[in-house]
């Protein structure tokens, strides 16, 4: 399971960084959200203890359940990532209307 997580996180980071460096701002924004998804997966993978049994579901006494805290952290991180993504898309919207382009190189040159 750990290997699978590691591969998935690496893939997410690779795709995310590649997309983030694109000139097209929409693609860059997508890379942004892929990166956040990757880091959320990383947090899930580093749970202090892991198990197949969901937290708070088992009534048995001495059964190792999965870590509930990382799930709470990811929930917070998802909300924050979503907020940033929404702000980013709103800014891209304004840029596309103000400058008539979403190519970041051309936006830089249109210093009016």
């Amino acid at each position, binding site marked *: 399971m750990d290997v699978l997580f590691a591969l998935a996180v690496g893939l997410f980071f690779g795709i995310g960084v590649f997309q983030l460096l694109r000139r097209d701002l929409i693609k860059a924004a997508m890379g942004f959200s892929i990166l*956040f998804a990757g*880091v959320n997966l990383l947090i899930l993978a*580093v749970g202090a203890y892991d198990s197949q049994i969901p937290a708070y579901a088992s009534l048995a006494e001495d059964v190792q359940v999965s870590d509930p805290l990382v799930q709470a*952290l990811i929930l917070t991180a998802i909300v924050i990532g979503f907020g940033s993504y929404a*702000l980013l898309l709103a*800014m891209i919207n304004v840029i596309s209307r103000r400058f008539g382009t979403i190519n970041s190189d051309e*936006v830089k040159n249109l210093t009016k």
Partner: protein
Amino acid sequence: MENNIFVLGVVFLPFAGLIIALFVQNDIISRWIGLAASASGFVFSVVVLMQNMSIGPQIYRMGGYEPPFGIVLAADMLSATFGVMASAIMMAAFLYTLHCRDKAVRQRSFISLFLAMQMGLLGGFYTGDLFTMFVFIELLVLSSVALTAISDNLLGLEAAMKYLFMSAMGSLFLLIGISSLYASFGSLNMADIAQQLGTNERPLLAITSSIGLLCAFLLKSAVFPFHFWQPDFHTTAPTPVSAVLSSVVVKLGVYGVIRLETLLFVAERDIIGSWLLILGMIGIFFGGLAALSTYNGKRMLAYSTFAQVGFILLGVGWGTPLALAAAIIYAFNHAFIKSSLLMLFGVVASRTKAKTAALADVGGVGRTLPAFVGLLYLLGGMALAGLPPMNGFVSKVALVRSGIDAQSWFYVGAAVVGGSITLMYMFRTWQLVFQQQTDEDTTKLKDPGVHDSPLAPALLISTALALGIFAGPLFTVANRTVEQISDPQIYIDAVNPANAPEVTDAGPELTLDTAEGEE
């Protein structure tokens, strides 16, 4: 320890103001609400500092969970000192918005976003929990991005975009660092992690996390390899926002680095310190020379921040008690100087029709302002360059003295040479703006008397002057701070009293001579 409501108030009074300001239609009233919320936050932060001086670290446990579970706001001397600094500057910035002629300030969301920025900033200083720190930092980043995106300067949008991408990378590093620490120790509470790190059992992941956290904090401070967003972002933001960004928001990163060095990774402080020295020196020279050669007044001050953070990092990098105290004094003093200078440049820029601070357009503009504005700028320039009797002199003396004490001759020499560059660019712009003959062609200027009020920068400069003449109290606070942070156990015991071991000795006696700083 009892929950202290004042600690909560510092963070949540701006939040209360934010909620109220959202429902207020009239923008004049909402500006007064902003000022009231930030001023009450300032009063509470001063109370927290006083209680720290007399009693000890103050804490507030959210929801009343026992340590190390639950979220805790913990204000020790370091947090309280930085908190007083941040809320004082925020209060001055809200005072500036009262008579600010920027269109952005009249936006309905402006005051709410600005208060969100104060909440994020103060929360970042006060929290005792790493993940909550991430949340507060994100709040700070998102609100400052939104504020810059609605700036009068059309380039603000591009700068905000750039900063959002850069700070997203910083947040990712922070999250990676936090999750690595959580994987190693199963805790997010800084005191708890510090205690487990202090037992010298260091998993490899914990060392990795120190790099992630360090990168994130250095990005927030705009230190050398992570600085590319800073000049654009600080130049194009609305004047009150840029004054806050360039003076206290960069200090959040400095605070994080000091915490890393003194609380979490105490054993690695020599390695971290040697990196900070190199990065700080690059910052001093790059920032100083770039400020000398730039074409825009606000941009010059943004580059200058870059250099001044370099000086602070030198102090943090030396890491001796004397040097840490000097770094804290420097950070505190620089906040007042830089915010007032940026506001003064905003006042000058508000005289021109294009609201520009470009040096080609503001030659002699200062002569059309009341004469004392020029005097304020001169005093601010003297403070930034480190001339007596301003507070900049006190902080420079403390820093150089601690460097001599650490026998680090190379970096002391670099700091002195780099500091003299400040003198050149500050006096050059003073002559240009306030001494040069005003352009005959007055079509670029607004009608006489139309400009932002220089009240807030005047108050800040007089505080700077007072801190220069009466430097004693600040030295006392800084010495007490260093006394406290040189023993991580004090912080750990205050936050997690359940596992408090036997009483430990206080830190070594400090020998910083306060009379030295009083000029």
